[in-house]
């Protein structure tokens, strides 16, 4: 089967408007918005629980996810993120963008980019737990419901990005 020809991206304002409608739907149906990072957290804690159940349950932070009668993956956000993956997969395939590759600037190696992705990911995973959400759960969702802390968080995300961007410029050139 021939893969679909590559389609252009949507106009960003149209994509934003449609994304806003999806977010609004989540609020109207569930009473809360979207999220991402906590699904990764649950997957990680669930894995840790498989390897070292006692130690994981004894941890003051992880004990909210695992313990007697708690099913770490039976959570709305886990299913929602499963949906994100499927939606992304269908979106990428149908637009001819499903391709095994490493996105990087011309001057950097694949290994460098993979290492940076992991390091940046670790920072984000830590930060998202500290701030109780990431760009989805705090900035997008909390932003739409006008949560004071979410707006502070969003401003700080941009500030942090702009602050460090000059130092990693060659990764993206």
């Amino acid at each position, binding site marked *: 089967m021939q893969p679909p020809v590559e389609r252009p*991206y*949507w*106009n960003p*304002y149209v*994509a*934003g*408007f449609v994304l806003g409608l999806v*977010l609004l739907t989540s*609020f*109207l149906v*569930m009473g809360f918005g979207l999220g*991402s*990072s906590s699904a*990764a*957290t649950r997957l*990680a804690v669930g*894995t840790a629980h498989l390897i070292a159940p006692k130690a994981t349950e004894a*941890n*003051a932070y*992880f004990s909210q996810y695992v313990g007697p009668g708690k099913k770490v993956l039976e959570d709305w956000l886990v299913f929602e993120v499963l*949906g*994100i*993956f*499927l*939606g992304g997969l*269908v*979106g*990428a395939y149908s637009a001819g963008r499903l*391709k*095994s*590759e490493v996105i990087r600037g011309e001057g950097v190696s694949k290994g460098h980019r*993979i290492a940076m*992705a992991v390091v*940046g990911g*670790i*920072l*984000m*995973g*830590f*930060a*998202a737990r*500290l*701030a*109780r959400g*990431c*760009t989805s759960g705090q900035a*997008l969702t909390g932003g739409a*419901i*006008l*949560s*004071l802390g979410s707006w502070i*968080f969003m401003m*700080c*995300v941009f*500030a*942090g990005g*702009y602050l460090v*961007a000059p130092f990693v410029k060659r*990764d*993206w050139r």
Partner: protein
Amino acid sequence: MNVLPLYPHDVFGFPTGLLLGTLIGFAFGFVLERAGFGNAKNLAAQFYLTDTRVLKVMFSAIATACAGIGLLSGFGVLDLSLLTVPETFIGPHVVGGLLLGIGFIVSGYCPGTGVVAMASGKWDGLMSIVGVMIGSLLFGFVYGPLEGFYKSGAMGSVTIAQALGLPFPVLAAGVVLMAVGCFLGAEKLETIFAPKANKPVPASQPVVRNRAFAAMGAFAVLGLVTVALPTRVPAETATPLARIGAVELAQKIVASPQDLWILDLRDAKAAPATERIPGTVTLPEGTTAAKFAATLPATRTLVAYAQGDVPTLPEGLRAFPGEVLVLAGGFDAWKGAVLAVPQPPADPTPVLIAEFRTKSALSGYFTGAAAAPPPKLVVKAVAPSAAPKKGGGC
């Protein structure tokens, strides 16, 4: 008559919720992919101002959803009080935001877009998610010493609208206006920074753009109309809340508890059983006081209380057909007026002593402690008094 949001109104159960969550997530992931967020270069470009796609998509989405919430709640189909507002913790939000921003530009993704990139076959996307998992575990390992900071600057669920004392739709209109201003500024910046980096300036597509602006603007304007509508006088200003004092309530509980429904409006998790007024109705699992009130027969007087004062009655209580009273000052007032051991009056008069006796008896009744003896009445020389003289008589 508000019917939204559906899930808190018990329209469907948890398993259906999971299915709907998958569908909502599917739409989320699909749109993120179409927005170009499955590719780190499109995301990183935001931080070099060569392509401000991230700002445009994110802020359009926030403005649209925000104005939509304002509009629907303004028309009374959506109960704003049932929407979850992420709680504010100033310190963690500032530090977490900065760290996440740094992680964003270093990895090229945020956690949500990383999942989309992974689904698009991008190995860097997959590895950023692996990083997020490791980072989550790291946070758990250092949670002990961090716990104090993690819980610092707690302000609870507070919206900017509440903080400024403005109706939600007014703030939403402000967000739409601000967004459009930011977009026009960002497009200007692109024309400066893209050529400097030898990148093409992103196409502006003014016709499509203006249509999107018009759609967001329409939501905002309709929301503003609901604020101006004379029919939208909030019920709580139309009928002032009837209040009952803590001491009066305590006396009623002692005298005729069978005439009262006492409802605790606080979150069940926030209020342990010892921190409740005796006789408070125990709510069945998974319901709220407001929802439960609608199921109660109006044969008794309903008394509602929160931690402090209750400024407005929740929807369900307003619908209660019988008499509804609100405990003035809430549980804090109850603690101060009923549970606390009363201080004997410094300048005892018969009235003050009677009051002290009542309070002391109530405090004893509700705390289980023996009532303190009343102070001696000091008879002032000038006042002719019928007070019994201690030790007088035979």
